[in-house]
């Protein structure tokens, strides 16, 4: 009977299907390997493409966004009248709450020497709303930028902020060089990132 034979038709077909499926899976993986990077990638915001829309604060999967404001001190003018610190139209440059642009008081201002002031971001307070970034880019040097902080980012397969970013400013960058901080790189310099999705 068929059981006593070494191979029957069903075994043969099963084996054929198994080889076909294995070849298919390996083939797909092999084609994907052509585009494989040696290392991992992580999400990052290109500050030159960022339009400070404010979605970073609301659209991250984390309930407190992984995006925070980062101060690129190299570019800072240490202004007294800081467009990222004071609301526009402020007449009295003091630290009264009505004058502050930051809704969470995450920016600390320290006097250094006449007429310069240092601005430090307290990340634990920052919500990534980009108000200060917009202010600094409009009136100042643009030294305040938004960056995805990798001590917080969970590196989703598809970044939910990237999906809603109106200016496609969020890309994957190599994990060993995970920040795009103004001053370290310029808009003209093309990093080796890949497209948004």
């Amino acid at each position, binding site marked *: 009977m068929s059981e006593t034979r070494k191979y029957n038709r069903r075994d043969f077909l*099963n084996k054929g299907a*198994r080889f076909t*499926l294995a070849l298919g*899976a390996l083939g*797909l*993986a092999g*084609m*994907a*390997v*052509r*585009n*494989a*990077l*040696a*290392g*991992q*990638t992580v999400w990052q915001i290109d500050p*030159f493409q960022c*339009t400070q*829309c404010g979605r970073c604060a609301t659209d991250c*999967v*984390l*309930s407190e966004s992984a995006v925070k404001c*980062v*101060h690129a*001190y*190299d*570019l800072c*003018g240490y*202004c007294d*009248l800081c467009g990222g610190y004071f609301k526009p139209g402020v*007449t009295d*440059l003091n630290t009264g709450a009505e004058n502050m642009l930051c809704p969470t008081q995450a920016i600390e201002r320290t006097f*250094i*020497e006449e007429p310069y002031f240092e601005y430090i971001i307290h990340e634990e307070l920052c919500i990534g709303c980009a108000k200060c970034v917009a202010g600094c880019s*409009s*009136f*100042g*040097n643009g030294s305040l930028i938004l960056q995805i902080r*990798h*001590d917080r*980012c*969970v*590196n*989703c*397969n*598809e970044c*939910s902020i990237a999906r809603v970013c*109106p*200016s496609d400013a969020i890309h*994957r960058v190599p*994990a060993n060089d*995970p*920040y795009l*901080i*103004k001053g370290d790189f*310029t808009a003209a310099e093309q990093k080796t990132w*890949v*497209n948004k*999705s």
Partner: protein
Amino acid sequence: MKRKANILFNLERWVSYTSLIFLFLVSLPGSAQVQRFPKPEFETGYTQPSPTTPEPRSDFMAYVDVLVLLLVMSLAAWFLLKKRSRMGILWLSVFSLVYFGFFREGCVCSVGSIQNIALTLFNPSYAISLPIILFFLLPLLFSLFFGRVFCASACPLGVIQDLVILKPLSLPLWLRKTLGLFPYIYLGLAVLLAATSSEFIICRYDPFVGIFRMGAEFSMIVLGIAFLLMGLFVARPYCRFLCPYGVLLGWTSRFSRKHMSITPSACIQCRLCESSCPFDAIDNPSEALNAEQKVVNKRRFLLFLLLIPVWMASGALALYQSHPFLSRAHPDVYLAELLIAHPEMKENKDNLDVQTFLASGKTMEQLVIEAKQIREKYKTGSWILGAFLGLVIGITLMNLFVTRKQEDFLPNKTNCYSCGRCMTYCPVKK
């Protein structure tokens, strides 16, 4: 005197303000990187701090994840095939829930990796990382050899549902077959949307990732809890009726070389295992058919075989017709359509996407050209998807009339998750 000084001071402020506004007006948006205020030279010996850059999880850890996956699946295969131990599988699944679920926070998973593979195949500029490819490939290869051990032991989405099974109900065949079509639809749509660089729907609607991260938007948490509550009575609802990766695992497991068996030697037809499977994945011995029924079955089988091209053609036509709708999943197409249908939206200051587009300097013509190119891709993709879904429906119907001859209680290799519950019910030991 003091007052006068104040006025003077304010005047100075006013001058500095107007000069600021002037500066703002002359500087064009594109020149944001120009340093308006030079960096000061400090005399007090102030040292400038540098921004902190906390490192992401290292690449090395991604390979550790792959290794853990490999180990878990190998152990699961060993527990199932050599030790025949349900306890082993159970503890492995608890480990995977903690490691891949709560510790790794459910990302990247094999289920979602389908999209990365699809995207990189159709968009060569998307660079994929090697661990993701391995996450996609390893469970499929294991499934080809040992069945769906990945589902039983390693998949965090699967094991969280497996651990909450309380009182599983047996679903009627027609319901299982109908709901069983959804994974194919989900798989097809996920591949279509990923291949056109639109979005990753599997990740976006992942019901459990919010639970793993202990925090997500409200709807995500609600969805996760709803699935878990449903899972008390309908075992593994996501795996059975939605999971797109399960489709691929089903195909590979169907032809697996060494699938787990209910009994270690010969089935004694005791029927103890019959209701042990919470997933209705045990095939009962086939009923003997009389000659007349056989002829009827054969005729119906042939009829449904011949109907397959009809199903495929109508599926292809239906989805081809709906490609304009599907293509709206891509943000560029959506924006272009919105602006053509409602030109007054350009005045809407609250619509960020519209405002950003207008400020970007891109012309409407460029946007429309891009949207049209994307829609062309959808045109091709959607009829292929339709034909595929037609094929699936046709084969599902045809399979209802396959006369198979089976004498024992056997796990259905396509649907069996290799959880090993049935093994404990079998009285035959060795």
